[in-house]
């Protein structure tokens, strides 16, 4: 189905199942241990061997020698895989560095060996016996040292490296009110609960790979490229994923090593990447150094806005696109955004939840707060004043839906914003300095081709098959709701099968594009199935109603069981997109409100309450969408207050590479969260009239926390994370 004109009325609009709260249909499996994750397939793989990954002990250089003798002789060892005996290896489209290092080492903890043994413990013990001698090379590990001189780099291929509208420099110079500030965000790691994990099993030249991955087809393709295996010989299965956050978008070392290990051992091999390797072996969100300049007239009209950001990556990597939202979020006739990309020899950077917008808004939305204060305007009023309903670069191009102002105003009313004291450091509750902050939320919606197969069985059960993944987000449930709505059956008459490369290729999970596109693909397949039913029954396909397990046309009606009595009916289709997303700007909007307390003695910041108001098209399932948003808000708190991969600039690694030293929020940090979804249907997005929402919940949260802290203390912080050491000495004297 090609979606190239705005959606008209369709069966989804009935909203008898879609749009209604529904508990996860996979919930009981997950809470009872019945959902088998990548590392847990004892029924299919009765006698696996175990792999243990060895990571490089240097950041850059060369393996001079590797002595495997002692490890090979250790009890239980079956095989050891290294780059030397892996054969010629390609590199997947989505990988920057090689997944197996040696003899050249590209980054710290790059995988250099897999030890395969009868038991996990034997593999781990033998791995400790491998002796490696390295020659270290000098590397560049310090973003600050190279950020300002790094070359400009566009976010997308073929686009000029700078985005310009009007004449920013002249307008900024002429602006009566100005802001010119710098902000930094550190490197972040995904820190998902389930580690990267795979089981590989060969059967002749056919490979089955159970793996924890967000993008089944990308990863299957990259695995074929990397190892020179025909793609059609690979079955990739990822039905349950215990968190990914962008880390599991790509083929990673666990999968490649499991496949090579299984080949060498002539046995199925299972590999779970050890937690201490995860921060440096895999991808991370790169640190940024950002500069924002805003010029305005005294009435608060923005006349000039510039956002520049530098980040680093390994050679041939990409930038953290922290400036892109600034092209669209506020009005202003003169505009500039630019990114610089430095070559760093740290582990490779790539997508982490809401890449670009998450760190970009942590800077922009603090700058907006600072500018509002300079203008003596309420921060909400300043944002409202600079709202735009069109793409500032191409004013004929409108947003398909843009309810930013309503999000801000509705949120202000619900949160009690009028009780905020605009003068900082005025509100005290015992030892706590109390403040409120706000930030706009913005994230683009992306269209992705997405396919599905739908089958109506003789029992009246509708089975959906798609390679879409459920990374804890609720995909199973919203797909079931979509099929139930389309076929007129209850949710418990729908069976959803996900995450297999045997199923039609879907959007996959990432970039908040999963829910809307994957359900639109299911919609397309269901439309085809409805037509097939009409054809079989001799009904008019233009006049069909499916409800309560029956299909009705004109005066005739048949139960779905009867319709399928002559044999299962199956249909496959995919949603594909025309250029509506070029005619219209498809984006999602929200507003985040935060109240914090800052301990006047120690400077420790603790959340008191949070509110997110989101406008993101039709919300397919308010329960799972809310879970997505509160999780994202929690991540926003982490990035605001504690998350930081600490770079050791001498040795070139993230040194706090475990969950004791890389802190993420715990329950005690998050006392109260509220989420409100505005009514919105976006007929330009897809037939579901839905857009992404998961990452919107993160975008802007960090800045809202920062702004609340400033309101509490009067001390402005611009370098994340906003830990107590950065401001407590500037708080009121106490001793």
């Amino acid at each position, binding site marked *: 189905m090609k979606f190239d004109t705005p959606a008209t009325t369709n069966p989804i609009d009935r909203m008898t199942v879609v749009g209604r709260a529904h508990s996860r249909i996979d919930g009981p499996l997950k809470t009872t241990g019945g959902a088998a994750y990548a590392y847990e397939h004892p029924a299919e793989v009765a006698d696996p061997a175990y792999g243990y990954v060895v990571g490089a*002990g*240097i950041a850059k250089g060369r393996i001079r020698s590797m002595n495997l003798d002692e490890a090979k002789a250790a*009890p239980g060892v079956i095989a050891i895989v290294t780059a030397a005996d892996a054969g010629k290896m390609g590199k997947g489209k989505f990988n920057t560095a090689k997944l197996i290092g040696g003899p050249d080492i590209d980054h710290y903890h790059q995988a250099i060996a897999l030890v395969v043994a009868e038991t996990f*413990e034997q593999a*781990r*013990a033998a791995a*400790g016996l491998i002796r490696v001698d390295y020659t270290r090379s000098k590397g560049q590990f310090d973003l600050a040292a190279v950020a300002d001189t790094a070359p400009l780099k566009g976010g997308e291929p073929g686009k000029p490296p700078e985005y310009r509208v009007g004449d920013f420099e002249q307008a900024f110079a002429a602006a009566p009110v100005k802001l010119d500030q710098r902000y930094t965000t550190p490197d972040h790691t995904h820190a998902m609960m389930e580690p990267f994990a795979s089981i590989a099993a060969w059967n002749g030249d056919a490979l089955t790979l159970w793996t924890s991955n967000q993008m089944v087809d990308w990863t299957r393709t990259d695995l074929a490229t990397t190892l020179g295996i025909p793609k059609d010989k690979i079955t990739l299965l990822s039905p349950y994923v215990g968190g990914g956050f962008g880390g599991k978008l790509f083929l990673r070392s666990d999968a490649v090593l499991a496949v090579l290990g299984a080949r060498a051992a002539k046995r199925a091999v299972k590999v779970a990447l050890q937690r*201490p390797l995860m921060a440096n072996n895999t991808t991370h969100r790169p640190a940024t150094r950002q500069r924002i300049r805003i010029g305005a007239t005294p009435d608060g009209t923005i006349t000039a806005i510039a956002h520049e950001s530098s980040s680093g990556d390994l050679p041939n990597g990409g930038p953290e696109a922290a400036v892109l939202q600034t092209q669209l979020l506020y009005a202003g006739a003169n505009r500039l955004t630019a990114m610089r990309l430095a070559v760093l020899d740290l582990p490779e950077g790539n997508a982490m939840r809401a890449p670009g917008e998450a760190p970009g808004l942590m800077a922009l939305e603090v700058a907006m707060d600072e500018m509002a204060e300079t203008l003596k305007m309420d921060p909400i009023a300043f944002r409202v004043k600079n709202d735009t309903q069109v793409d500032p670069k191409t004013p004929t191009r409108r947003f398909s839906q843009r309810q930013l102002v309503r999000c801000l105003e509705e949120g202000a009313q619900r949160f009690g914003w009028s009780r905020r004291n605009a003068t900082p450091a005025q509100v005290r509750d015992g*030892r706590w300095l109390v403040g409120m902050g706000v930030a706009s939320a913005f994230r683009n919606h992306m269209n992705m081709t997405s396919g599905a197969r739908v089958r109506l069985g003789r029992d009246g059960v509708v089975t959906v098959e798609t390679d879409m993944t459920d990374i804890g987000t609720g995909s199973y449930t919203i797909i079931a709701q979509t099929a139930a709505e389309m076929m007129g059956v209850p949710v418990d008459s729908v069976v959803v099968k996900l995450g297999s490369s045997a199923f039609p290729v879907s959007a996959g999970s990432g970039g908040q594009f999963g829910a809307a596109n994957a359900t639109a693909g299911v919609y397309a397949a269901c439309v085809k199935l409805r037509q097939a039913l009409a054809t079989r029954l001799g009904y008019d396909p233009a006049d069909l109603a499916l409800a309560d397990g029956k299909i009705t046309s004109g005066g005739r009606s048949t139960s779905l069981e009867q319709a399928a009595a002559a044999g299962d009916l199956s249909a496959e289709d995919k949603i594909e997109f025309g250029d509506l997303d070029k005619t219209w700007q498809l984006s999602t909007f929200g507003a985040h409100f935060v109240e914090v307390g800052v*301990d006047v*003695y*120690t*400077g*420790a910041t*603790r959340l008191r309450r949070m509110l997110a108001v989101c406008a993101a098209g039709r919300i397919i399932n308010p329960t799972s969408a809310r879970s997505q948003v509160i999780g994202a808000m929690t991540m926003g708190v982490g990035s605001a*207050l*504690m998350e930081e991969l*600490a*770079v*050791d600039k*001498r*040795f070139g690694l993230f*040194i*706090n*590479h*475990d969950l*004791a*030293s890389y*802190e993420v*929020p*715990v*329950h*005690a*940090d998050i006392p109260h969260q509220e989420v409100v979804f505005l009514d919105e249907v976006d007929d330009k997005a897809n037939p579901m009239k839905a857009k992404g929402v998961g990452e919107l919940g993160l975008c802007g949260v960090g800045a809202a926390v920062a702004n609340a802290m400033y309101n509490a203390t009067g001390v402005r912080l611009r370098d994340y*994370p906003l*830990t*107590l*050491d950065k401001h*407590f*000495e500037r708080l009121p004297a*106490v*001793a």
Partner: protein
Amino acid sequence: MKAFTYERAKDAGAAARAVAGRPGAKFIAGGTNLLDLMKIEVETPTHLVDVQDLGFDTIVKTADGGLRIGALVTNTNLAADARVRRDYGVLTRAIVAGASGQLRNKASTAGNLLQRTRCPYFYDTNMACNKRRPGSGCAAIGGYSRQLGVIGVSTSCIATFPGDMAVAMRVLDAVVETVDATGARRAIPIADFHRLWGDRPDLDTVLKPGELITAVTLPRPIGGKHFYEKVRDRASYAYALVSVAAVIQPDGTGRVAFGGVAPRPWRVEAADALLPQGAAAVTARAFRGATPTEDNGFKLPLATRALASVIAQAKA
């Protein structure tokens, strides 16, 4: 993890002899720290002597009105003991400020005293570490040291003792009781129990090989208001940047020890005497001669402010 042998000791003497007689042997109780370190080969014992069957799991009153806490009393049970809560509130508060409920259910009193540093360079076996591999150097010096020590450290090691419970025991003047392989018993004041690193940061405590902790005794209650103020980046399940254990009397005198700053719970009795003069006077004396890094210099003024909060609460 290296292969190791294992035995369950039947009595304290046998346990002490089993460890003293074998180089590389270690005791194991709750294992909440040791097993994690073994998995990443930071600890590589050749033999484990499990002491869980030795008893030592009761808290009894001593003749002079104090408490004797068995070495195997869990953190959970120690924190919850009615006598501890009533008379030694600083100890309960310190324990519940640490780790998680699950870990406190498993962690023992003796094991908590013996937990090893959380320096990230100690945890990464590719990095030089004099504590893990004597003579290899210290990668933490000149590296990421935000969490590390500001006083009592050396040119060989700037790690801290990371615990909470021991900081409270330090203000209570607890005594660590041990038995060794010959059956000899020692009573070690907690002030002397943890070593300053000097040039032997591999040795955390003054215990001799095979010397087994059997109990920790608390002197009779000293009254006063009890505080444990733990400053950290998140609200729970994090090591202290700085902690303050304090007992403050109605007249403003008292005792104070600091955690997260040194190789041992840091208490300077001469600084205690300055409590009536306020927090700044106390910390100026307690941290005299401190050698912070650029990353962790904030711990000194933070300690002052954390103590100020305690003094303010004591007056309230």
